[in-house]
């Protein structure tokens, strides 16, 4: 509901008639206020020659020199690495790559079909809302929603956000069940709508991870990594996608093996931005395509490879959306990126929008289970049925 208490409205078409760039992200080699991203005034060379129109003068200060929606330094932060190690849990049996239309949502599934955690809880932008499966359209009569509770005693479901992109967090702002869970997220600049969402969560359930935090333990023997782009002079357009959290999850993959291999989830972060330990890098059997299958800003470059035993049949899942008009949002997955994954031996592929028919259709919505084919313990939700098995 909007701040004025009225019904949310669509105001229709508006044109940008004047624009002035006032702050840009800057990458910090050493974290500043816990973040590897600061907002600074742009250099003069960034502004085009034509002067922009001026907004009305108001207020005494009239200078926007601070990121007003940054999470307060006083907000609770949690350095999970300092917590006592959790008791050894049963290994996660696999990862669900959930069909949320144009967005990302992965869930960690254990051997009994219970859910331990989400890595991202995304939802499409309004323009791409029709890319959702019917049972995930919030407030629609058929809405079934995600699984929001764990059946495991003393182990509530947890949510980890890769970064603050709308299509990676918005479902958390929609579904009231998810808002009862703990959120762990990277310390990044956020916008007004993300700030509004965070303001509605109790501080005790917000766990902000500062940049530079060493890899730390997640649920079910998973591990999380603070990402940082390689090189000192990366394009500023790469900063936000590459300063979030990535996750590795040891599972039985291939499921016939008793040896555990890792599934690595990076959200929109490039693989060379993730500080994976060598023992994990050498033990990967499954990945999700970076940034929904983008080929921009090196998203499909510098890839890791699967374990040798898989040959060129490494497991890869693509999460993207196709609208009812047949439009692939943002053109994902980009054919050139798919070719790069195949060249790096990630050829056993499924997608949330098209199943095995990536970029050749017909569309066939479905959740993907990468790992052992276990039955989800929670029935009656949009996440209870895992259509595509990759085991």
């Amino acid at each position, binding site marked *: *509901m909007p701040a004025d208490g009225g019904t949310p409205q669509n105001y229709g078409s508006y044109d940008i008639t004047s624009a002035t760039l006032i702050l840009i992200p800057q990458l910090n080699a050493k974290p500043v206020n816990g973040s590897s991203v600061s907002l600074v005034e742009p250099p003069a060379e960034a502004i085009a020659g034509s002067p922009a129109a001026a907004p009305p003068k108001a207020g005494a200060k009239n200078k926007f020199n601070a990121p007003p929606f940054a999470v307060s330094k006083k907000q609770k932060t949690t350095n999970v690495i300092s917590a006592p190690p959790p008791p050894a849990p049963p290994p996660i049996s696999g990862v669900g790559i959930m069909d949320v239309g144009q967005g990302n949502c992965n869930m960690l599934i254990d051997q009994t079909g219970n859910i331990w955690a989400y890595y991202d809880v995304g939802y499409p932008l309004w*323009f791409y809302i029709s890319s959702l499966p019917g049972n995930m359209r919030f407030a629609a009569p058929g809405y079934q929603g995600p699984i929001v509770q764990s059946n495991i005693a003393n182990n509530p479901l947890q949510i980890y956000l890769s970064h603050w992109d709308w299509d990676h967090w918005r479902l958390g702002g929609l579904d009231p069940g998810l808002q009862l869970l703990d959120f762990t997220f990277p310390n990044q600049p956020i*916008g007004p709508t993300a700030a509004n969402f965070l303001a509605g969560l109790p501080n005790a359930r917000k766990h902000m991870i500062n940049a530079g935090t060493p890899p730390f333990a997640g649920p079910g023997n998973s591990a999380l990594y603070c990402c940082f782009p390689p090189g000192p002079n990366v394009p500023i357009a790469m900063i936000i996608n590459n300063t979030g959290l990535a996750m590795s999850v040891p599972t039985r993959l291939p499921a016939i093996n008793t040896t555990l291999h890792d599934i690595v989830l990076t959200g929109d972060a490039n693989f060379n931005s993730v500080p994976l330990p060598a023992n994990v890098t050498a033990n990967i059997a499954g990945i999700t395509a970076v940034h929904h299958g983008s080929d921009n800003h090196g998203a499909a470059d510098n890839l890791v490879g699967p374990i040798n035993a898989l040959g060129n049949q490494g497991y890869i899942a693509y999460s993207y959306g196709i609208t009812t008009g047949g439009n692939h949002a943002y*053109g994902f997955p980009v054919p050139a990126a798919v070719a790069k994954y195949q060249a790096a031996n990630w050829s056993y592929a499924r997608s949330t929008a098209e199943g095995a028919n990536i970029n050749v259709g017909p569309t066939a919505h479905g959740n993907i289970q990468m790992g052992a084919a276990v039955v989800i313990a929670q029935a009656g939700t949009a996440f209870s049925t895992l259509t595509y098995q990759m085991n």
Partner: protein
Amino acid sequence: MSAPPNNSWSSTFTSVNDQGQNLFTPPLSPSNWYYAFLSKVDLDDTSQTYDLMFEVVAYEWMQNAIASSPVDIVAPFPVSPALIYHVVGLTEAEVVKTLNVSDIKWVAEASWYLLQLMPGTNSNTDLYDPNIDTLPPTTT
């Protein structure tokens, strides 16, 4: 228990409150200016066009709540009347021109802009309350 204010006082207080409500609460800016956080920049490799998504707040609200303060506020900010402004299908040249930057390399997520947004007719743009996705499909 003290006596309630008489009708004259109540009327005055209501009028003062209304002035504040009218100036600072509605999401649309009376001057058409907005502070805009560039939340998403996506390149469609197939069409070589860009989608831009801004989280915008009326200039007047931001000036009142944030920029007019003589000190930098470190406490979390109150819930703001944030809107989404989305524009799709811009070429690189159009992005650069529209955002008044010298090169596409300066267009980055997490940047802040001051934008003047005027009602238009371009079907590739949309200004909306983000919570529009909470409404049943039959109403939207």
